[in-house]
């Protein structure tokens, strides 16, 4: 009866799923069914212990992966799902802090800023600092440079927080550039004022909580009897440290699924070394899933041939075996004269295959994909090219979300600035120059309330419906829990038409609005089905947690970078512009380590394929300076195709 849970698993998968106590490293190549193993293992552990009440902690790499696994597990275990926490590493830290953050002095009402919001906040801080630099040209230049590479500095700050030194100590660090420290300090102070934590804070405070209140750590350690980690190869130093602290000396039931050949996040601090440390310290067993269920034999052969050129791999790793019978030739290599020719070729082939939903085109980066996307749009081929974290396409709906955030957290400076900007767009008042009105006596002193008050008293805002909208928002502030009612009214004002009018009029501008209404309706429906009690807080969380992918209709051809394609699979895969200096990128050429990561990227790209793989490269490239010859990528040779 119990082993039904393990139906449909092969020998190796079954062995892994049934592994009882003790640590295990499961090497799972692409298409080997690791998600299945993880899901079934959780189901097995839960259903074998119906009398017991211990919990299971499963850490995934993305929210999407967590949601999908959770759905599958719930379908098989029903109510026992309450014993499972499945989410990303950061979402677990957030869970801990929401519950027990007050034990180290954190406020109850906090929000988490993801990478994009944090970077936006950093940007604002930089702008302020540039102004404050005044005549100091050196400082100004430094800050402008930071602005240009803001993502890099975001990660630097995150790493500073990951050292687990108290922030005050970091502020005293004389060895860093003073301007950078200044920015770090200002950024943190603004976070606190906005009632927010960034990802670095999440980890820092969680570990601080575990350190200062050991009884809480002990409780978690006792209750979470089994820990599972997905994508172990992309786990970085701080996450391993977390695992070590969490487990202490006693807890050893850690199950890590990894494939070092798919390690794409080295730039984020992931390192094979942590994986190897884990195996040693936890005395982990090592299993490997050898069978690839996804790719045809030919593809596995070339992929294995490619990846074996990497030196830094776990020892004793066997090559994968295919499960699929050998079909007719399924790997095609095409060389084209120019990028335009390449685009033509790909387009014609895709039209011929005529299965858009199951077709994907990958490239080293987005710039390469862009011209292809434009061509598809011209011709009328539907495209799915996920932009970062953008759930809504129209400005109107984006402003709705901004407004909801302002209402929820009336002190959130970044959202309020965006709101103000949208309002005064017709003015020439720039974002940085928005005055935050001083509080009047007897008035609410939150920033948003003050701004609304200020706007209502200074009518020259350029949009005719503005005053009504401001009054609406002011009454919204007093009645936050009736937000459903307010959402429709706000949209009505911003769009200038009622929802019915938008949905019934068939024009191009309405097309996007209709699409956004559709997305919003889907979110609301899903939210209402989960909740009993509607609060603005939980609704915004629902929006934040909604993977954009759930709501965008993936009926078009997918245009993805390799990182975006992680975990996905397609019947027909095109990998374009496989040229030396493009893929592998020119910046990697001098560094063996980086080349290995590029090689892994290519390995991941190739192993997305279920039926047919089309590889292409160009002989020439045209820039504004002239036409240059191009070399095919070395990976093609390493795959045995050239």
């Amino acid at each position: 009866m119990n082993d039904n849970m393990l139906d449909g698993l092969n020998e190796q998968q079954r062995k892994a799923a049934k592994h009882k106590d003790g640590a295990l490293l499961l090497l799972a190549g692409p298409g080997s069914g690791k998600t299945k193993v993880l899901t079934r293992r959780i189901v097995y552990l839960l259903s074998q212990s119906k009398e017991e009440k211990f919990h299971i902690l499963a850490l995934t790499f993305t929210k999407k992966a967590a949601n999908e696994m959770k759905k599958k597990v719930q379908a098989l275990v029903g109510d026992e799902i309450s014993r499972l926490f499945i989410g990303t590493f950061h979402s677990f830290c957030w869970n801990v802090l929401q519950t027990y953050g007050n034990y180290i002095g954190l406020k109850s009402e906090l929000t988490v800023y993801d990478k994009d919001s944090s970077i936006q906040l950093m940007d604002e801080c930089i702008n302020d600092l540039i102004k404050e630099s005044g005549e100091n040209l050196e400082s100004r230049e430094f800050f402008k440079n930071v602005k240009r590479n803001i993502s890099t500095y975001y990660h630097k700050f995150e790493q500073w927080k990951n050292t687990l030194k108290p922030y005050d100590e970091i502020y005293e660090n004389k060895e860093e550039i003073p301007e950078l420290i200044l920015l770090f300090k200002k950024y943190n102070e603004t976070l606190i004022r906005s009632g927010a934590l960034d990802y670095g804070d999440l980890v820092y405070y969680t570990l601080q909580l575990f350190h200062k209140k050991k009884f809480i750590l002990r409780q978690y350690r006792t209750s979470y009897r089994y820990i599972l980690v997905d994508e172990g190869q992309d786990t970085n130093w701080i996450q391993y440290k977390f695992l070590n602290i969490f487990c202490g000396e006693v807890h050893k039931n850690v199950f890590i699924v990894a494939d070092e050949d798919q390690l794409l996040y080295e730039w984020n601090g992931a390192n094979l070394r942590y994986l190897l440390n884990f195996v040693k310290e936890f005395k982990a067993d090592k299993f490997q899933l050898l069978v690839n269920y996804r790719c045809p034999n030919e593809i596995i052969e070339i992929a294995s041939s490619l990846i074996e050129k990497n030196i830094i791999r776990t020892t004793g790793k066997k090559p994968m075996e295919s499960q699929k019978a050998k079909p007719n030739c399924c790997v095609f290599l095409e060389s084209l004269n120019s990028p335009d020719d390449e685009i033509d070729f790909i387009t014609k082939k895709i039209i011929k295959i005529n299965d858009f939903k199951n077709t994907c085109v990958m490239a080293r980066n987005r710039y390469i994909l862009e011209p292809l996307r434009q061509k598809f749009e011209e011709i009328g081929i539907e495209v799915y090219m996920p932009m970062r974290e953008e759930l809504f396409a129209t400005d109107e709906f984006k402003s709705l979300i901004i407004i909801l955030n302002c209402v929820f957290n009336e002190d959130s400076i970044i959202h309020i600035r965006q709101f103000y900007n949208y309002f005064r767009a017709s003015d020439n008042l720039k974002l940085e120059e928005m005055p935050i009105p001083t509080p009047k006596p007897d008035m609410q002193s939150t920033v948003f309330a003050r701004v609304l008050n200020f706007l209502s008293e200074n009518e020259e805002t350029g949009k005719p419906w503005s005053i009504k909208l401001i009054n609406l928002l002011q009454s919204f502030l007093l009645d936050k829990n009736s937000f459903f009612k307010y959402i429709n009214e706000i949209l009505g004002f911003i769009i200038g038409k009622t929802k019915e009018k938008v949905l019934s009029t068939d024009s191009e501008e309405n097309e996007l609005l209709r699409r956004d209404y559709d997305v919003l309706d889907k979110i609301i429906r899903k939210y209402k089905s989960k909740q009993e009690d509607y609060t603005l807080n939980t609704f915004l969380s629902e929006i934040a947690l909604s993977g954009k992918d759930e709501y965008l209709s993936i009926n078009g051809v997918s245009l993805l970078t390799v990182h975006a394609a992680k975990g996905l699979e397609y019947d027909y895969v095109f990998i374009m512009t496989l040229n030396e200096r493009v893929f592998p990128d020119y910046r990697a050429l001098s560094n063996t380590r980086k080349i290995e990561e590029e090689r892994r990227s290519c390995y991941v790209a190739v192993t997305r394929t279920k039926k047919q793989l089309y590889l292409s490269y160009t002989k020439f490239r045209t820039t504004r300076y002239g036409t240059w010859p191009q070399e095919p990528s070395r990976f093609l040779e390493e795959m045995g195709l050239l």
Partner: protein
Amino acid sequence: MHIHRIEIHNFRCLKHIDVNDLGAMNILIGANNSGKTAFIEVLHHALGYSGRNAPTEDDFFVDSKAFNPKKSEPIRVIIEFRETPDSRFSDNINNDFLDIIQYDEDIIPDRYKDEIEPIRYIILKYEYSFNKSRSRYIESWCFIKKDGSEIIKSKVSNSRKSYFPYFLMKALRDASDEVKRKYSNWGKLKYSVDYSNKQEKLKKLVDRINKLLISDENILSNLISEIMKIGDYLDFGKGPGDIFLRAMSDRGWEYLDNLNVFLRSRDSFASIPLEKHGMGVQNFVILFILNAYLDIALPISIENKETTPIIGIEEPEAHLHPQAQRAIFRMLSDIKGQKFISTHSSHFLRESDIYNFLLFKMDSGKTLISRIPRYKPSFDIKYGYPDIWYKNNLFLNNFEQNKIKRYMLYKNADIFFSKLFILCEGDSEKVFLEILCEHILGKSLAQLGVSIIPCDSNTNYKPFLKIASKESLNLLWIIFSDSDKNTRNKVENQVRSSEYDFEKVKKDIIFLYKGQDLEKHYIRELGSSLVINILRDSYMRNDFEKFHNSKPNSSEEQILKDFLKKYKIPAAEIVADYIVSKKLTIPRKVKQLANRINSKLKLR
């Protein structure tokens, strides 16, 4: 799981209630209409296991004439469950309430923080109010942190609630109701029986009985033929399977419909069903059925080995003889779980620990609850201190505790039902004052809620003063004391050392005139010859004569004094009765006492 603290807001007369340090047994006492029923019933709304329903608009606390329940403050109940160092939460509880459990570090002194784990607790919040966006009244449950903020994603699921199911036994306990209703404890016990493996056998027997009862009887089989003609007029079939009679049900869940308890009195021949017995027997049996249900059926239906039932019972003593009352009390004490029992029975009180009493009082339409604290209010209670510290910080020391317990046990547990204590030295004062005060005030002291407590010596007032104090039950008191030798000082010192502001309470201490005790006082007021005559006129005449004759050399006054010393109590009764019947002038100090009683109770 044990309830440690309960907070109630805006439910009927319970505007703001906060009681903590609750034990396994909690006795609710207080006048009628002081909020005891509200307390027991609101717990049912919040934690009821079965037969639970929502409050209604009438249940909101009304604070003004223009009251609108839709705009009122919500009805809110906050319940805190807490472990103790000796009885920690089990692993199952820790797992089931992961991310909900809170930790109390403050209660562990710093020097022990490494050795003793903080105390875990769980806070449940229940609310009932009008929800504007949904246009109706809504109940909600959630778990919260110490600061009141809701713990997100913490569902108050059935499996969590199964640790603390609440059962309500209201005052009106009618056996026919209990026996007939499907969801009474009796009903639940009945329906937990499973006959499925006897199904076939039973069906055959039922069919046979139906045959014996019906088709084998002429009258009834004729009746059937008549009835079958209905098929001619209405759209029913006319065969024997379409319209038929049945006396005994053949449906499994109806077999026990008439299951009843029959009781036969000893030495009698008659076995009588429960509902035909007197109310006392009915009440008693129903409470036993509750016990049986908790023992037998609950563990099965609730599927949680660690469940601790919480029970609210109103007046379990209803209709019961004192011996039966004590038996019920013992049965209730033995029930595993936590109990909240409201009672008017001094027999109950006598069996209980004084720290378990919750005294309910009504003050301008709002209920106040007071208790006898275990420790002095100034003591910052933490775990892990040396035993001697706890001992030194008791609110009542052992001697005082025993004094009260003994008083309750052997003399009068009614003191806890009183509004006002009168502390005096002995039984003679008690008898004297009771008779005269009734006469002056027009009502008996018992009717007025006044209790006279003879303390047996002038150094025994302190325990009573303490439990009457504001930190404890907040009751009114008057001391009526002798005034001989050092008594005055002793009495005043006791009042001072019970933390009263002496200047404020001076008026409540009535001393007899200097050097007097009660007998001296009334001899003085009436004159010794009158007293002697009263005695000679009473049923004590013979005793008096005998006494008189045995002391030929003493003066009349001396004989009187000595006689009264020996026969204090009957003499006090006789003299008091005489004063009343002959409408003599009341002794001045007694008048003063009556006046003081008047003004303290604000009579007239």
